[in-house]
């Protein structure tokens, strides 16, 4: 009898094998290994191994310049922490700074120079060709235009890099333009002082009252840690914060008093407060008698504010007269800081609102007194420097070549504003940004620069720092070959002038500080400061700064010079009384709304965001991005909108589509839309992807886009 294998035997063998395999760990282990294997493909990037190092530096992602402790493995940063005891940031790091190391790998990183060709398409070119092109445009701009035909827009003015820009521009008869920053309004105060004024800072920590016109005081204004510090202080220690704002921002909700003001009526409120100070004699009579140049007489300040009675002011601002009186009396009870805030997305207040607000500081005798506006001592500079001007002061159509510095200034501004300043036929824009941004689509040439963690630079001096300081953004990672330092670009095109390197400039400032012998140096590894005099040589100070140290100056006595309460600018003075011509809140037409763009302090505009921020915006909606419009239910009801509806917001320049979010805390008649980020387009800044409300505003002559008349319409699908 022969042995033959039947189909059934074969099935038996397979069945037995299957059950046998299932009774062994092999399949389960196999599944586990496959899962791991899929995460460990050989082509996946891997963290290099290597020595673990801890270094100290400063954050260069915004002008707050927080102290950072960076832990690296094999030369690659893997974690970032704050530095406890740091004199300005006090251990604070914001969400952006914490994830700052991701920026070097960001998908919107520009990896080669690009130029807009004749067809209008952007194409890549070599760095050599890009520099040659920049040189040609520079020659053309100089030969065809006069003073100011070449300009640099510096998003982080005040650094030694800015001095190098100004030195270079001086040889070209060019202008250095200050980008918008949260400390921009303080220059308005300087223009109100008669004669040369020093650098000014706000002494928030010692103030009795903070009068904030929409400034993000508790969200990290100035030195990032200050807001956290203020929130953590007991009521008896911290200043009384009055927040004047239409939006229920974090500061508004956390302030001691939130004045929900009608949109665009800050000038009226400031002059109304001045009315009470003057009429009740609550101002600093000695200083005003000695230094005020325009209090009395026809057309004087006294005459102006007399028209802003509490009743009138209440009618226009929507804030009741008793509260206005209460705030004025509180304000006059001690040193106070007034902050005509720059919103990171909504921009500055109008020039007259800033003037009216700072007139309160002058009335109260706060300029030059601790807890008010204090002066910072200057470190002497050498060489001839081009003037620094505000963008608003640049004549329209005057710039033939605009170079935009790649630093992050912390504030967004409408592209239309820049475009207006360019010569309509020959104006060229060269951007040195390391990242693709929708705002860059107007740039004719892009030469990618380094990110803040790759290059040495000077960290900022925050608005609330009462004294000057110097800290360095010491690089914690290697800059890729395709990026270049902005000063290297200038030195490549500079034919006759010599552009110093950033290290030479920083070293020079450090040496001058050492020669001055003032102040102290904070050592982040020990968490303590030592007097500068203990540093024997200038090399010792430089090493301390390179180790993440921070030099801080001593405070300077400053006597307030003569001043003009209505400012020196005749046009602004003339506009001040016109503030009373605004309609009262009761007269506001139903269906009439204003768009008030705003920005998140660490994520304004369309700049790159680290992936972890997606949690804040896209996944949890803890923060609303530019796809949402916040409006009060009453206004929404009048306009026929409900929660979650799609709406089209139209201004004279175009429209954006948003989702309606109802919030009873928003002031009636206002719709708030965040200026970025566009989380729909994370990492994608191609045209149309990053629809920003800032593409919409039509700026008034004073370059203010805070309040924009708009219509809100149903989206017809």
């Amino acid at each position, binding site marked *: 009898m022969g042995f033959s294998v039947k189909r059934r035997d074969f099935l*038996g063998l397979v069945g037995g094998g299957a059950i046998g*395999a299932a009774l062994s760990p092999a399949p389960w282990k196999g599944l586990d*290994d496959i899962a791991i294997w899929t995460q460990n493909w050989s082509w996946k990037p891997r963290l290099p191994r290597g020595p673990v190092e801890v270094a100290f530096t400063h954050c260069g992602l915004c002008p707050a310049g927080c102290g950072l402790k960076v832990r690296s493995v094999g030369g690659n940063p893997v974690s970032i922490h704050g530095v406890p005891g740091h004199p300005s940031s006090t251990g604070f790091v914001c969400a952006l700074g914490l994830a700052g190391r991701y920026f070097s790998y960001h998908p919107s990183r520009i990896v080669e120079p690009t130029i807009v060709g004749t067809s209008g398409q952007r194409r890549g070119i070599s760095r050599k060709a890009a520099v040659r092109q920049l040189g040609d445009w520079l020659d053309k701009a100089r030969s065809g235009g006069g003073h100011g035909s070449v300009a640099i827009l510096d998003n982080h003015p005040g650094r030694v890099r800015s001095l190098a820009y100004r030195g270079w521009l001086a040889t070209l008869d060019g202008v250095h333009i200050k980008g918008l920053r949260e400390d921009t309004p303080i220059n308005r105060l300087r223009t109100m002082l008669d004669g040369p004024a020093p650098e000014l800072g706000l002494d928030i920590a010692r103030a009795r009252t903070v009068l904030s016109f929409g400034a993000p005081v508790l969200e990290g204004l100035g030195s990032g840690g200050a807001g956290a510090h203020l929130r953590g202080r007991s009521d008896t220690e911290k200043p009384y914060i009055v927040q004047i704002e239409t939006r229920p921002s974090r500061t508004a909700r956390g302030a001691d008093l939130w004045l929900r003001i009608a949109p665009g009526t800050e000038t009226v409120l400031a002059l109304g407060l001045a009315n009470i100070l003057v009429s009740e004699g609550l101002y600093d009579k000695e200083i005003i008698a000695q230094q005020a140049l325009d209090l009395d007489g026809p057309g004087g300040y006294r005459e102006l504010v007399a028209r802003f009675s509490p009743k009138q002011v209440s009618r226009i601002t929507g804030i009741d007269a008793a509260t206005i009186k209460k705030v004025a009396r509180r304000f006059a009870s001690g040193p106070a800081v007034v902050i005509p805030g720059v919103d990171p997305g909504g921009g500055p207040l109008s020039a007259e609102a800033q003037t009216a607000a700072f007139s309160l500081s002058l009335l109260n005798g706060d300029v030059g007194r601790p807890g008010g506006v204090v002066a910072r001592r200057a470190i002497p500079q050498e060489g001839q420097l081009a003037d620094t001007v505000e963008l608003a002061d640049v004549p329209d159509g005057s710039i033939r070549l605009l170079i935009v510095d790649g630093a992050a200034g912390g504030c967004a501004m409408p592209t239309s504003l820049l475009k207006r300043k360019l010569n309509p036929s020959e104006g060229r824009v060269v951007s040195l940004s390391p990242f693709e941004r929708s705002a860059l689509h107007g740039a004719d040439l892009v030469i990618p620069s380094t990110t803040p963690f790759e290059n040495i630079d000077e960290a900022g001096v925050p608005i609330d720092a009462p004294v000057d300081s110097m800290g360095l953004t010491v690089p914690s990672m290697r800059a890729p070959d395709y990026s270049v330092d902005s000063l290297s670009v200038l030195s490549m095109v500079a034919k006759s002038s010599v552009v110093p390197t950033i290290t030479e400039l920083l070293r020079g400032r450090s040496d001058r500080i050492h020669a001055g012998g003032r102040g102290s140096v904070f050592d982040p590894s020990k968490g303590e400061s030592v007097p500068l005099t203990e540093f024997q040589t200038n090399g010792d100070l430089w090493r301390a700064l390179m180790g993440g140290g921070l030099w801080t100056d001593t405070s300077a006595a400053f006597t307030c010079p003569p001043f003009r309460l209505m400012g020196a600018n005749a046009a602004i003075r003339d506009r001040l009384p016109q503030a009373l011509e605004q309609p009262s809140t009761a007269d506001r037409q139903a269906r009439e709304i204003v768009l008030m763009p705003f920005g998140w302090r660490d994520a304004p505009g369309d700049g790159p965001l680290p992936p972890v921020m997606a949690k804040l915006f896209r996944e949890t909606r803890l923060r609303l991005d530019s796809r949402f419009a916040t409006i009060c239910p009453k206004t929404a009801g009048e306009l026929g909108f409900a929660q979650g509806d799609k709406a089209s917001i139209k201004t004279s320049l175009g429209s954006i589509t948003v989702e309606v979010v109802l919030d009873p805390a928003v002031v009636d008649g206002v719709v708030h839309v965040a200026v970025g980020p566009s989380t729909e387009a994370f990492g994608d800044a191609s045209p149309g992807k990053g629809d920003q409300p800032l593409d919409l505003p039509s700026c008034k002559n004073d370059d203010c886009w805070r309040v924009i008349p708009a219509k809100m319409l149903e989206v017809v699908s």
Partner: protein
Amino acid sequence: MILTQRRTTILFFIIGLVVAMLAGWIAVPAALYESIEQPLGFSHVVHTSDDAGMECDDCHHLTSEGGFAGIPKIAVCVDCHEEAIGTSVDELKLVEEYIKPGREIPWLVYARQPDNAFFPHVRHTRLAKIPCEQCHGDHGQTETLRPLKRNRFTGYSRDIWGNDFSGITTSPPFSMKMSDCVDCHRKRGVRDSCLACHK
């Protein structure tokens, strides 16, 4: 006839079952892991003996930052082995190939976790008071260093899955898979969210 046929089928079934089980329990583990010798022989016992008088944390200590210094660098070995002590092959190799040229010894780490896992030794040993042996076994009592068994597929050390291929370990050293971490965290009422270990 039918009975015979059924017997044959059962026989095939049993053959399949046994072969698959043998493969699953013995052949697959043997084939899955490659065995890699350590670069140098090393006896923990000799070092911790009364003669040498060393303690575990002379070499495997926590840094002042709270991190774990892991395997010592030759800077530690050089204190005693600047010149060869004895004439063993390993001793001569240590001095000639590593100490004199200043080269670090490329030790193979049995407990290496993937890069995306954050494991602070200080919290586990000081705060949770978990003995080192729980994960690493009684390493301090070994005469030699066993070869590293590396998974050909994933590159992981066998110690992560656990020495027992079934994945069921009842006595130390316990396996160090993510599920083990999660189980232990849950048992002790410690946070077990993703971000606790994957920062």
